[in-house]
């Protein structure tokens, strides 16, 4: 894999708009894993998140030339990835829903590591989908509350309340309580 392109996303977007194809490759390599995670979260059974990831970047590419970056690129990539995965669920005529964390293949765990516990996964999976979605966007995708509101096209107040309710539920859940010890 080539070295990381030192340019910012905004500079790469400008370069791609100017017709430099290698800028797209740099954007792809920088955000591939992030998009893959989102795709995996929404992919319906039987759909490969890898295919969805490729489709997301193709959709992004189609926006050039002329794409204007006015927020973090992930704020644009998230709805594309979510929408692409949910569209595939619709095409398969299966219910569009968040993939559970329970039993997630490849979840990293081992002796001496502080989790992740299957209990935590089970506790998170019991959250209402809207709360779970916001929690994972904040904790795993590292999006700000404003970015989440933008990506989901919902009011900031709704994002805050969903996150707060999710944390409140987890705090009172015996399976997740230990993560809140010595916290607030």
């Amino acid at each position, binding site marked *: 894999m080539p070295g990381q392109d030192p340019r910012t996303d905004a500079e790469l977007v400008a370069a791609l708009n100017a017709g430099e194809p290698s800028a797209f490759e740099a954007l792809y390599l920088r955000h591939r894993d992030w998009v893959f*995670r989102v795709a995996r979260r929404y992919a319906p059974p039987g759909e490969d998140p890898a295919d969805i990831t490729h489709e997301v970047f193709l959709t992004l*590419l189609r926006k050039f030339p002329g794409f204007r970056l006015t927020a973090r690129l992930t704020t644009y990539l998230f709805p594309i990835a979510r929408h692409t995965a949910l*569209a595939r669920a619709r*095409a398969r005529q299966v219910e569009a829903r968040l993939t559970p*964390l329970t039993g997630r293949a*490849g979840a990293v765990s081992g002796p001496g590591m502080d989790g992740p516990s299957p209990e*935590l996964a089970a506790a998170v999976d019991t959250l209402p989908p809207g709360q779970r979605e916001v929690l994972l966007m904040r904790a795993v995708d590292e999006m700000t509350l404003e970015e989440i509101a933008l990506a989901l096209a919902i009011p900031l107040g709704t994002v805050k309340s969903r996150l707060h309710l999710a944390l409140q539920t987890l705090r009172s859940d015996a399976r997740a309580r230990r993560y809140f010890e010595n916290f607030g």
Partner: protein
Amino acid sequence: MDRPDSDIPDGLKPALRRLDGPVAVWPGFDARGLATARLAAARRRRMLIRGASLAAAAGLALAVIIGPWRERGARGDLNGDGAVDMVDALVLARAVDESKAQRSWDFTGDGAVDRADVDRLALGAVRLSGGGL
């Protein structure tokens, strides 16, 4: 009600990230993705060049030939009922699902007729300032 981000305990974030699992893709995954993108970009460039030269002539021809009938239906009025609304978005969504969409339904102008065009049409229909694209 303005809860700070720090409401998420320090230990919970890494635990959730580990639960989410690593990203593991097969060898050649990136090569395939980037090759597909290059192909799409090349196709798009060809389309843009061809389109630019054809556009002027076609635009003139359309203006002369079908201009007088333009008022029959607004852009996005796919079922021809005189309004751009959610039924038109439904017509488009079904056509996209069944791969029967017409090229002229590319409302996003990105060279493809897909769910993004359904979203564009539907959002145009619910615009407070009046339905339409």
